[in-house]
């Protein structure tokens, strides 16, 4: 093959001598991708042992999921918690990012570190600490408890995303708006926000997913009629391998992909239409 003897780099290495490297890379990429993706076809298997490829296709695990009141309730709780977390963490995190960016005080550096602690401290410690606090505050097994804890975990993510967007944003634009008579909030909402919209939507999407995928804190502080989907999945996994979870996993992959697609759809097209004005 001629491709094998063509140059792979500027230093006279041919693709042929790198063939083993390509094979290794392919194998590692397969290792990363296949386990997650293979669950999707397996969830349509009729067998208890989830064959691949399925000998007989069926929707029985999806039926089992949609017929179960427990799974349905947990799914609703997870969606509520995720949406509320995005609603709480995005504005709070954005306000913090903006404040820290605009104030340029030395104290801002310290506050930045404090706000990053939720992703630094091991999650198990956050879990038992929040649990301990909720026992005193009587917030265990409540939706508001889950939302507050998950918002706290999502704040660093929103902060990092919005802060990096502001770093590349020219703040003089706000100055111009204000010199033309706009108040600071008006300047932010009319000038800055539309331009960092992509980051804001990304922050909201990742806040939703932080809550939607979170297991450990939910394990401690959610329960009863407010237990989350991940908590129920985790408990089911510890007992036995329930094929229903393959169906749920497939649906979760779909939800994750849709949520991650949101910024691409809304953030970018909005920015594009602004340019065409």
């Amino acid at each position, binding site marked *: 093959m001629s491709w094998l003897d063509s140059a792979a780099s*500027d230093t006279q290495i041919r693709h042929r001598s790198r063939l083993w490297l390509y094979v290794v890379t392919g194998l590692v990429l397969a*290792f990363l*991708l296949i*386990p997650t993706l293979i669950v999707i076809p397996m969830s349509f298997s009729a067998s208890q042992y989830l064959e691949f490829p399925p000998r007989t296709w069926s929707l029985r695990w999806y039926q089992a999921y949609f017929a179960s009141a427990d799974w349905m309730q947990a799914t609703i709780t997870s969606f509520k918690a995720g949406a509320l977390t995005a609603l709480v963490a995005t504005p709070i995190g954005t306000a913090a990012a903006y404040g820290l960016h605009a104030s340029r005080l030395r104290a801002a550096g310290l*506050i930045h570190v404090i706000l990053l602690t939720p992703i630094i401290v091991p999650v198990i410690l956050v879990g038992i600490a929040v649990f301990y*606090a909720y026992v005193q505050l009587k917030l265990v097994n409540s939706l508001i408890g889950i939302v507050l804890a998950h918002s706290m975990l999502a704040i660093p993510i929103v902060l990092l995303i919005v802060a990096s967007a502001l770093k590349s944003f020219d703040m003089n634009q706000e100055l111009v708006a204000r010199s033309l008579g706009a108040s600071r909030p008006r300047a932010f909402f009319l000038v800055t926000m539309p331009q960092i919209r992509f980051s804001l939507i990304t922050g909201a999407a990742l806040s939703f997913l932080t809550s939607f995928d979170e297991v450990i804190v939910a394990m401690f502080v959610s329960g009863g009629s407010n237990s989350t989907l991940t908590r129920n999945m985790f408990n089911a996994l510890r007992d036995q391998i329930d094929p229903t979870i393959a169906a749920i*996993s497939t649906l979760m992959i779909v939800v994750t992909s849709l949520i991650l697609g949101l910024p691409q759809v809304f953030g970018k097209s909005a920015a594009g239409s602004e340019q065409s004005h």
Partner: protein
Amino acid sequence: MPVTAIPTEPTSQIPNAVELKWDHRLERWLLLGLAAPAVLLVVVMMIIPVGWLFWLSFVADDGTVSLVHYRRMLEQPSYGRTFAATFQISLATTAICLLIGYPLAYTLSQLPRRVANLCMIAVMLPFWTSLLVRTYAWLVLLQRRGLINTWGMELGLWSEPVTLVHNVGGTLIGMTHIMLPFLVLPLYSSMRAIDRDLLKAAANLGASPTRSFLSIFLPLSLPGLLAGSLIVFILCLGFYVTPAVLGGGKVTMVSNRIANDIELFFNWGAASALGVVLLVLTLTLLYAASRLLRLDTIIGGGHTR
């Protein structure tokens, strides 16, 4: 008689400079106030409760201040085993990630950007898939009647189902799968930043491809390698879900033990003490990493220039 006294402060040309300066300072503090809700949430939900646990770890069961929970950690061999297991599993995961992540990052850094970006999607996809979903996927693949065992027996590689999961091996596979992107991302970006002209110069001066890789590319990729490995190792120390599910109760890392202390024994003191040790370990390593890496990027920057 002088009617007006024009202020002639040496520092200010503008009449109300002092007031303006105070206005400006006030505004900056008000802006900082925008961070207050976030700070409040983090302090109330995390810093105070963690502080509480810190205090609890020094309180004995009878309510007196003591080091009993920490002393127990040193005296009971089971704690030693938990810490040993945590370190061994974290080290092994980091080593496996290095072994398979370096060739991957290297190849990606050599490919044309468009192809590399496509491959990066493959690296990022599992990154954003729920951890629980991925752990479940491995459980399905590795179980006794799972895909790997079925295929292995059909191909005649082994005749009896092999125990692949609910042990240390299964835990390592699952953790490697989760941690690999954390190694590959910093490594890839540090490899992309390496100046290709240096390799051309080495080849020009007669170095073989192996030689120029070993004495030029490898040393220049070390900062990224170190950053990635440290992140992987630190994150591994706090793992809970993967050892709990894929370890099948046979693998007890520090986090699993903390959860057991709370869920089974309601022993807040013991759990808090373990949590404090885990936190101190994590923070120390992070601090060391930040010092080490800043040093390295300075050295690395010196080399490339």
